[in-house]
């Protein structure tokens, strides 16, 4: 019963929090560009407007995949907040991303096809790091369970500092920020129109928008996981990571997928492997 209430609270509160964060994102980005920027509640206005638009879908499959994307991301967030298995959470997120990609592929538009292909490449870039993060969690705690972290006094950041840096790189990809906002972007029109979300409109785009809010909360949760005792320190850490991403977004140009893949597979993976090797070599923390 307690778990059910927590799940319900997560489902209701997470999009509100995600929407506020993306509103804050737009205000802070505008101030960094010496603009006034939209009101803080702008993402909610956008969402309500999209819900009120005429429902025009390219086909039914597209809508099904968008719904699957929403449910799977929400499910992985609920699992995460219930202190579930990180490996399962990572795999659910991957399945959700695949649904998003298939949604992009299901419309006959070159823009959404290129966007989907780039999203696939993004998955290829971040997925190994996320799995190594789960491995690192297991090496440290002897369990994949996120809930187990609350029984530890030593923060995860102390034993996995390099994996944390790799996660920050991944965060740029997951939050769709420059230099890695390849598949779709928050900003104006680009060579891809809107990439993978080009063919979604009105209420269906609103679904994608809500899913992105859930996803934002989830990836920031992954950051907060690095400092669970006390929990507020983790939340501060997550907010600092969020702010760092905004700074990076505003000082970077968009780069190619080629660079992204090389960067994450060389530096990102190297950071993770050195960190995990170090833990193994030290021989401590392994149950």
């Amino acid at each position, binding site marked *: 019963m307690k778990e059910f209430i927590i799940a319900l609270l997560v489902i209701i509160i997470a999009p509100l929090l995600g929407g506020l964060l993306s509103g804050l994102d*737009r205000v802070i980005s*505008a101030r960094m*560009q*010496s*603009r*006034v*920027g*939209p*009101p803080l509640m*702008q993402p*909610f*206005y*956008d*969402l*309500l*407007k999209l*819900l*009120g*638009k*005429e*429902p*025009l879908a390219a086909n039914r499959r597209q809508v099904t995949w968008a719904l699957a994307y929403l449910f799977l991301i929400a499910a992985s967030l609920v699992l995460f907040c219930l202190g579930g298995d990180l490996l399962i959470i990572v795999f659910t997120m991957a399945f959700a991303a695949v649904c998003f990609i298939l949604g992009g592929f299901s419309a006959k538009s070159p823009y959404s096809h290129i966007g989907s292909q780039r999203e696939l490449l993004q998955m290829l870039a971040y997925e190994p790091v996320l799995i190594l993060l789960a491995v690192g969690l297991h090496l440290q705690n002897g369990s994949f369970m996120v809930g187990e972290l609350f029984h530890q006094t030593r923060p995860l950041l102390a034993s996995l500092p390099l994996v944390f840096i790799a996660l920050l790189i991944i965060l740029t990809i997951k939050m769709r920020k420059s230099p890695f906002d390849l598949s779709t972007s928050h900003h*104006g*029109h*680009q060579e891809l*129109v*809107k990439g993978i979300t*080009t*063919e*979604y*409109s*009105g209420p269906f*785009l609103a679904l994608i928008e809500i899913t992105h809010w859930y996803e934002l909360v989830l990836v920031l949760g992954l950051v907060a996981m690095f400092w669970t005792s006390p929990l507020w320190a983790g939340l501060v850490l997550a907010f600092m990571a969020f702010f760092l991403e905004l700074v990076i977004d505003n000082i970077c140009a968009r780069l190619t997928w080629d660079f992204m893949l090389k960067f994450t597979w060389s530096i990102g993976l190297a950071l993770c492997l050195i960190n995990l090797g170090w833990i193994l070599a030290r021989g401590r923390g392994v149950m």
Partner: protein
Amino acid sequence: MGMINKSRIKSPWLLHYDGSSCNGCDIEVLACLTPVYDVERFGIINTGNPKHADILLITGGVNRRAARVVRNLYEQMPHPKVVVAVGACACSGGIFHDCYNMLGGIEKVIPVDVYVPGCAARPESIIDGVVQALNVLESKTGKEAAV
């Protein structure tokens, strides 16, 4: 319905299309996005995607080749939507009105809701035109609800 109507006015996403303009008005439209005018204050985003747009902003008159594109863009936009013709050419054909390939203003192809005069239209008047378009958007949704 009240909340959604209110949100519509606070979140107009633009689609900017250049019919056959001399680029003067286009540059003024883009100037609206710069820190000096900063239309994102009003929640305006330049989308570049008809499927996401609420307001179709057209600069320049329509020639025979662009007519098909303008009609296509307009049809791809989901309801409710409004059209703003920016600049003298978009309003009436302007100095190009009697060219052999010109059809005239945007109204020759799709229904226009707001006309923004000027050659080139100033950023202030473009923003004013968009804000007036929002009133049209509101009245349009009101009518739809009544029907």
